[in-house]
Structure formats: C-alpha cells, structure tokens
C-alpha cells in the first residue's frame, strides 16, 4: 500500500492543492478589486467578487450549457436543461419586476431580426466545436484547460469581426425588442415569463420521457443552478443589468486590435455611444469585463484548490483546430446574436424579452449542426 492511499481522504486532497495558482487567483482578484476601489467604485469591486463566486460555482458544479444541450439533442436527457430553466426562473423573479419599476435598472433586451437568428445559429455551431459557450469558456480557461485558451483567443477575434459585421446585418431589417412587462406591467410580465419557462420545461420533460431518457437533474447541477442564480441576482444588483459575458471579449479584442495598429474606432459599431466609450475607457470600466475577469480567477482558485493546476499535456492538433474554429464562430455569432447563453438566452428570457426564446431556438438548431461536425475533429458526438 502506498503512502498516498493510506492517507485519510482530507490529507490527500490537501496534498493535491496547487497553492501557487491558488495564490495567483487570489492575488489577481485582489489587484483588480484594489484598482477599482482606489477609484472609489465599490459596485465594480462587487462585480469582480460576484464573478469570482460565479467562476467557483460553475467549476464546482461543472455547469455546462454545451454538454446539457448536446445530451438533450442526442439522447433526450433533460436534467441539465431543466436545471438551466430553473436558474432562469429564479433570476426572472428578481429581474422582471425590478427592471420594469426602477429606472436605474434594465433588462437584457435586443431587436428581433435576421441578425439575431443568424448570430444565434452560428453561435450554436461554434458552441459544440469549441466545447463551451461564453461562460463555459471562462470557467474552463480559468480551470486550467489549455484547449479552451485557444477557444477564448479565437472567441475574442471572432467577436471583433462580428462587431464589424453587425451594422450590415442590422440594416437587413428587424423590429424593436418585445418585452413582456411593456405590455403586461411588472407582475403580469413576470407571470408571463414564468409561464413561458414552465411551458418550455414541460415540453423538454415530455421529450425526455418519450425518448426514454432521464429528466432529473444531477444534485450538483441543481445546487449549482440555485447558487448561480443567486450570484446572477448579485451581478444584476451591482451592474444594473443582467450579467452578460461576450461584450467583454469584444472590448478586449477591440483594445488589442488598436494596440496592434488596426484602427477600428471609425467602424460603425465602435461609433455607437456604448462601444465608443468602452474602447477609450479603462477595461475595468466595463461591467462585463469585471465579471468575466472575476470568473476566470474564481475558476482558477477553485481548480487549483482541488487538484494540481493545468498538469496535462496539450490536446491533439485537430482538437485545437476545433477549439479555434468554434471560438471564432461563437465570437462572430455572439455579436450578431446579441450575446451568448448568458447574455442573450438566460438574460433575455429572465428579462421577459422575446429575443431570449428566439435565440434559444436558433442556437439549438446550430447545435445540431455542430454536433454532426464534431467527429471531423476527432471529438466524440456525445
């Protein structure tokens, strides 16, 4: 019997902790939090801390939109998807009435049109090739996956390309956002939102039953959904809007492009007030970037606290190619589709905005294509 196996489980776990990267995660979070606190921005610091919690929660619960959707599409397993819908319902209880009644808060809204459908569909393809969505990329990068470093890098590139394409797609036409609370008031809007989530949950459950698959979420996934919903409510309170991920990538990419000599500041997207401000202001002045950075370091801390950090070899070249293509497609699709699973689907539906459901349907369609493409890159279909 080796010394390792004779040790109590607690001591073995302690021995595996990677204190160097735990320290890196904590110090990086303290540095970012300190920088915004020097500027007397406690809400910004709160966003970093909430992001840290989200990173740890996503990592510990292995909360994956990509895998949940794939299991549902391939096998009919609905547990993951139902836990996600529970999370959205919990978030909606806070977002719909508050966004409809307090002027300093707003929901996640977006116009309905070609751009939304095309963007979400392409995002769905990229999600399955990249093996993670916007939030999934953040917590797996933070968790020590070298493969996902490629996904993130190309997500950022795709996001900038998407920013240059978006105005042309918007010119193809569309209609203004449709928000339940605009028609039914705060509480009627909330009721309609919860009913719509309930109907989709029922459909998903019936599909699982008909296909003889499980419709019960794993306990860790269910706990994760509740914890993540609570943290997302925290992000909503601190940021004034539901948590969004991918605009942060666009800002990082825009700043890097400018640094590399590509003057994108005159492009139509970057002339809109929000993106224009984000390009010139500090990266820590953007709510999405604050939460994203916190999430990466939260996942890093959680990963390094439980096992040696990033110990494995690099994945095969074909897998890295899929990660890169997936990232590129997700970045481009997220800009055209007004976000990822978090910003468009979760945030949109939880705000009572119709675009969230359209995004979900289109991205689900894209996922079916992405799943078929996975074997081309040596990835398993399931």
């Amino acid at each position, binding site marked *: 019997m080796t010394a390792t196996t004779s040790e109590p489980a607690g001591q073995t776990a302690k021995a595996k902790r990677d204190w160097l*990267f735990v320290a*890196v995660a904590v110090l*990086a979070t303290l*540095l*970012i939090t300190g920088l*915004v606190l020097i*500027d007397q*921005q406690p*809400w*910004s610091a709160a*966003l970093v801390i909430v992001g840290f919690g989200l990173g740890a929660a996503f990592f510990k619960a292995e909360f994956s939109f990509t895998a949940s959707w794939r299991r549902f599409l391939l096998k009919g397993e609905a547990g993951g998807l139902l836990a996600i819908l529970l999370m959205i319902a919990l978030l909606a209880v806070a977002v719909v009435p508050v966004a409809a009644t307090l002027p300093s808060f*707003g929901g*996640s*809204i*977006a*116009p309905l049109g070609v751009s939304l459908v095309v963007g979400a569909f392409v995002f769905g393809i990229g999600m399955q090739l990249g093996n993670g969505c916007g939030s999934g990329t953040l917590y797996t990068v933070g968790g*020590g996956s*070298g493969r996902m*470093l490629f996904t993130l890098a190309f997500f950022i590139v795709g996001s900038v390309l998407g920013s240059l394409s*978006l105005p042309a797609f*918007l*010119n193809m036409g569309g*209609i203004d*956002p449709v928000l339940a609370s605009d028609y039914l008031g705060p509480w009627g809007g909330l009721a309609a939102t919860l009913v719509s989530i309930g109907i989709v949950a029922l459909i998903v459950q019936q599909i699982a039953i008909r296909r003889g698959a499980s419709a019960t979420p794993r306990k860790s996934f269910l706990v994760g959904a509740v914890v993540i919903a609570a943290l997302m409510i925290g992000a909503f309170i601190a*940021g*004034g*809007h539901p948590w*969004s991920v991918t*605009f942060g990538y*666009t800002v990082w990419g825009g*700043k890097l492009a400018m640094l590399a000599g590509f003057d994108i500041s005159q492009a139509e*997207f970057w002339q*809109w*007030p*929000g*993106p224009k*401000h*984000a390009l*010139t*202001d*500090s*990266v*820590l*002045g*953007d*709510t*999405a970037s*604050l939460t994203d*950075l916190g999430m990466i370091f939260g996942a890093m801390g959680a990963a390094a606290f439980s096992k040696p*950090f*990033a*110990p*494995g*070899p*690099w994945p095969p070249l074909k897998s890295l190619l899929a990660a890169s293509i997936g990232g590129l497609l997700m970045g481009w699709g997220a*800009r055209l589709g*007004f*976000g990822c699973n978090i*910003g*468009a689907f979760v945030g949109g539906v939880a705000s009572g905005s119709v675009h969230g459901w359209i995004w979900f349907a289109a991205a689900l369609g894209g996922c079916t294509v992405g799943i078929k493409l996975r074997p081309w890159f040596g990835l398993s279909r399931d």
Partner: protein
Amino acid sequence: MRHVYAIVTLLALAGIFSDHITSPSIGRAVSPQDFAGACAPCGAPCPSKK
C-alpha cells in the same frame, strides 16, 4: 501547460493594469445598454431609430 498559463496570466494582468492607469476613469462601471438609444447589450440602436 502550467508555464503557458503563468505567462498568459502575467501578461493579462500587466495589460489590465497598464490599460487602467492610462485610460480616463469616469466613475461607475457601465454597460453599453446604459447609453441613450441602446437597444441591446452591445449598445446597438433600435431598428425604429435607425
């Protein structure tokens, strides 16, 4: 892979720090949705306003 992670993390933190201290800081962090006329999380205008 650990070395790559350490380098990427250091470069990212250096980039964040230098960007922050060289950029104008104008107060509370914002989202593009906070600006007038924004119709999406990225700040895109509403179709009716175009």
